[in-house]
């Protein structure tokens, strides 16, 4: 802090604004009740009326990896929040986008930052809070994480990450990871879907009741 800045009090205001911005980011990425409020009263009421659970008691199949056992989360921001905190058991974070929905279950495609693993993840967003449980082969980071994916379909996923970030609502944009975290991989073109993943994507697409790409 410079002598004149301190004398004139400008730094204090800047500091305050910065602090408030950081607090806002922290709330967006991690505060479930704040996230629910952002969805509007009607939606918030709907979420709050649902059970706060880690896994659906009637879930069948692998948790989060089978559409019959989706991950309960709180709305669309809850989806971003949960998936941004999700990392592989090796500790790799993931980029993701929503490819569509099978009935009320949202379908996300995810890839690790290194491009080494591709996944299809099923999420049920009609719940008041995020599940505290991770699918098999994954874990949830303890600390809040800036968003690394989108609630809409990315036609050229994940190479269009910068465009998708730019297209996000302004209040969300600041909650995203810096582009510097993904640009090197994008530039090196490390992201190629393997055969098995393409096959899974085909199957999921064939089941979708709503598609983001159409």
């Amino acid at each position, binding site marked *: 802090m410079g002598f004149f800045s301190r004398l004139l009090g400008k730094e204090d205001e800047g500091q305050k604004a910065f602090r408030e911005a950081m607090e806002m980011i922290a709330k967006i990425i991690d505060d479930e009740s704040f996230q629910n409020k952002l969805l509007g009263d009607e939606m918030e009421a709907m979420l709050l009326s649902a059970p706060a659970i880690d896994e659906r008691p009637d879930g069948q*199949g*692998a948790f989060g990896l089978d559409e019959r056992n989706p991950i309960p989360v709180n709305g669309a921001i809850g989806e971003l929040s949960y998936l941004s905190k999700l990392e592989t058991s090796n500790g790799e974070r993931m980029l993701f986008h929503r490819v569509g929905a099978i009935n009320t279950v949202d379908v996300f495609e995810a890839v690790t930052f290194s491009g080494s693993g591709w996944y299809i993840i099923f999420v049920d967003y009609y719940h008041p809070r995020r599940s505290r*449980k991770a699918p098999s082969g994954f874990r949830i980071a303890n600390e809040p994480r800036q968003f690394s994916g989108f609630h809409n379909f990315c036609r050229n996923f994940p190479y269009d990450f910068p465009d998708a970030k730019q297209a996000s609502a302004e209040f969300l944009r600041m909650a995203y990871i810096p582009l510097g975290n993904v640009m090197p991989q994008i530039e090196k073109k490390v992201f190629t879907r*393997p055969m098995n993943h393409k096959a899974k994507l085909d199957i999921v*697409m064939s089941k979708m009741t709503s598609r983001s790409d159409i």
Partner: protein
Amino acid sequence: MTKAICFNCGAEKFGAFTECSGCKATPSSQEQFEVSMALCEHMHSSQQLAVFAEDIRQHRKLAFGPGILTQAREALKDPQLMSMLGLVIKNANKEQQRPSTPPPRPTQSQSASQIKVRRDAPDSTDLHKTAFAILDVTTRDNRRRIVEQAEERSLSMDHEMCAKARSDLTNPRLRLSVEVSWLPGISPKRASAYCTLIKHDLDKYMSAADDESPLVKSNLIAAALDLFDQDMDADDWASWIYQLASESDQIDAEDVFRLVNEDRAVAGFPLVSGPELVEEEIANRRRYYKDSIKGAIDRLPTKRMIDVMTDVVDTATMLGEDSAPLLIDELIDSYELGVRSFLEREAGNVEKLIGSIRDGATGGSRVVTPLIDKLDTVIRNWDRVAQPIQVSMKSRGLEHDQSRRMALDVRSLGIDLFNEYQMLDQAERITNLLKEVFAELPEVADKLEDDSIAIANIHNDRQRAQKRADDWVREITYEAQIGLVFKDTLKISQNGVEWKSSRVALDDVTGVGWGATRNSVNGIPSGTDYFIFWCDRNNVTRVQLNRENVYSTFIDKLWKAVGVRLLTDMLNGLREGKRYRFGDAILDDYGMELTKSHLFSADEKVKAAWSELQIWSANGSLCVGMTNDKKTVMTLPYQGANNAHVLEAAIRAKFKTGNPRLSSILED
């Protein structure tokens, strides 16, 4: 979405695994999945796909490039993809997060990754040998479809086998057995997937089976057992065998009856008239499960087989505390039959060893110990084989008779070694061995526990006695050098009393005495002489010394080492009616016979009871006299008379009790 062509008719479709809109075919077997995967634009260009489509339409054999099907196969190993294709993968996470205490019995998930397939695994499992699999028909296919399939299959397979399969499926009575042996209640696609998975990915196959009904799961596990490798951990073997037994216990004939009839209604076959017919088939099925397990474990080396059986029973019965599934009990019964001759042979060896130990017991522990070593080895060997039977019997509230008899025989040996030969250590070793080995025999275990307590008490008593003996030895041991120039050794220890290199064993000492004489010259004290003596039957040893501390220390040790024993011996003798002479007096248990002196006539013998007597010391002597007659008195010089101190100690102690008998002091 990905462009693909149908594996069945060559029509274009979107998505490799979607239903064909032309022929309605959906891939359902591993082979069809692999081909469908290859027939999409992920792996081939549109032009190539068009060629393949034509080949299919012309019923030509598809010729894929090298590695294409391998790539497809690899891709199909993705668990999520397998799940999407119709097989439910195990939710390992769900298992890990189950709350409360860990289940004592292993779950399938715990062993799902442990399955090793044997190298010489047969190409075809029991699952493939069922008529449904042979003809590739479903439980809902009608008679016509079955006949068609039988004819078609006969072109590429054994004709008689296809004919029999057709007959089994179209004859309503025979059909029930096939239906129960198959996978009732699951979709044709899923059944087909199992037939594929069992060949290619046994882990996934078993994992997927976890969610099936008891009959289906039992059939799936039983079919897979034939593929297990003998090197698989005994725990994993046990886990799967237990799963099979446990599931087979839960098969509900009513459920199976309903499922079978649902399929029959669709397929157009007469319905099964009642669940009792299904019950009969399930009983046959249980026999098959037992044979499957037996067949599988019979392939194992003996040691592994015993380990597996032990683990199975331990798991199924919670170490004998819970009843096992029926199948396990039956399995153990046939195991017992198999090992009976071995156990009988080993029992004979144990019997011979027991005889040898008894014969050699007189030779002491040096002879017995090596024989007990051998007995230990043979019994442990026995127990290793008999353990599953013992645990199983315990879980049924019974005892393995052969083990019980052997345990009791060996126990008798231990008792005899102690009672007859005082071999406490050997007896304890045998008891500990039996406790360890035959813990599953409640009656024997109770007896052994009592034996253990008794042995522990004896040990404690011996330890206390040893400590007392050690203390006594320490208390009586003393040595002093007597003499100014030429030193002589005065010594007392557990080995005896010594003076000038002459030693008398403590037990040989029959009398002791000591005293002191003060000397003076013209009334002026000139020192004190101290005298100590002891004697055996032949000699008297006298010691004179002038050091008071040596004197007082030595007589204290002498009293403890010998005096107490002489006193006890005397009192015991008195109690038995013996009499002892001290000077001219005679001592018995009730009093003393003293001599009354007369001045002008002969001395008179006077018998006095203890109540009439008194005791005192005068002029270096012990005096015992009648209280009412001063002339009736006995004097025993301390320095000359044997055991005057012993007598004095006895009489003084007696006077404190008030009892009429001198020996009464032993009782207080």
